[in-house]
């Protein structure tokens, strides 16, 4: 049986006002990623096709798209692995406004990062000695578990609580908040716990665990959010909040 030489890429084209899938036939190559295929379309067939990418090697977190209904890094997804019956559907990330074609507006995503207390609150200056934190301390290990997030938006796009409750801060922002709650150098704990305890805060998470299932960096935002739920609940019970 000879292998198929081409795949049909059904690529979402449009903008904030709407759009639909457009079919492009793309030749299949060895080791070709979905990002390679989308780039091929832009160079050979449709120069107007808009999408984002930078590093191409899974470090920058800009090339995430919805591939066959699941959000993924297109630079780390081999086309042959996702072709089903000669066909792949490529769409922009969900839960974010589309700017054009496959490029989304991340303003709300990063806005919520700030609302969840994502900014480090320094307690020392550059004139102070470097804080000594034991690598095996509990809080350091808790922070470590979530710190490799590169804000690609895959978890946010996969989260049904964000879809159903647009005020919800989302897995990435809350994961960031949890890493800072466990940062011994940080002085913003109380304010941060308040920030994640409101109407759109961590308590709205239903532990679907889509974020943990789909995170390309194998992080577990559900675990981080559970930590925030516990920390805020304890703060209320102790009368600190």
């Amino acid at each position, binding site marked *: 049986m000879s292998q198929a030489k081409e795949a049909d890429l059904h690529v979402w084209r449009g903008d904030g006002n709407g759009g639909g899938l457009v079919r492009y036939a793309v030749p299949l190559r060895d080791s070709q990623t979905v990002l390679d295929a989308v780039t091929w379309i832009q160079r050979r067939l449709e120069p107007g096709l808009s999408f984002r990418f930078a590093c191409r090697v899974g470090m920058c977190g800009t090339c995430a798209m919805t591939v066959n209904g699941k959000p993924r890094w297109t630079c780390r997804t081999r086309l042959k692995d996702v072709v089903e019956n000669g066909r792949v559907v490529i769409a922009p990330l969900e839960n974010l406004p589309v700017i054009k074609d496959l490029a989304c507006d991340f303003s709300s995503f990063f806005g919520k990062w700030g609302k969840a207390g994502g900014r480090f609150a320094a307690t020392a200056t550059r004139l102070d000695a470097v804080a000594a934190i034991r690598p095996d301390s509990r809080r350091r290990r808790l922070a470590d578990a979530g710190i490799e997030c590169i804000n690609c938006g895959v978890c946010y796009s996969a989260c049904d609580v964000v879809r159903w409750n647009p005020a919800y801060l989302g897995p990435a922002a809350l994961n960031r908040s949890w890493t800072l709650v466990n940062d011994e150098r940080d002085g913003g704990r109380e304010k941060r716990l308040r920030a994640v305890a409101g109407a759109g*805060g961590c*308590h709205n998470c239903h532990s679907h665990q889509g974020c943990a299932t789909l995170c390309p960096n194998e992080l577990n935002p559900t675990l981080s959010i559970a930590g925030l739920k516990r920390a805020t609940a304890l703060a209320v019970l102790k009368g600190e909040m």
Partner: protein
Amino acid sequence: MIGVRLYLAQRLSALILAPLVAGHLAVIFYAVQGGLDGAEILSRTQGSVGFALFYGLFVIAVSVHGAIGLRVVVHEHLKLAGRTLDGFTLATGAVLLGLGLRACVAVVG
């Protein structure tokens, strides 16, 4: 659409309900195993302080738990928000509490 206080109420009521629901399941099993009819059930429940406390607490906890649970569902799927959502939550809790306590009085009193 819940903050930390409604979350705490939801989880604390769940913690109270867990053993009560297990007990309620045991009561159901006991009743069907003995093949009890309505009069027999009532003869055992009427005047029983244990039953009154057990199901009184059950009704209070389930009113809190059910009202907050439905609040989340109607916000997420029917887009109720703000005062309408708060009103819905309170009304749901009040209906469950009222009907539940009435049932308790009927069965125990």
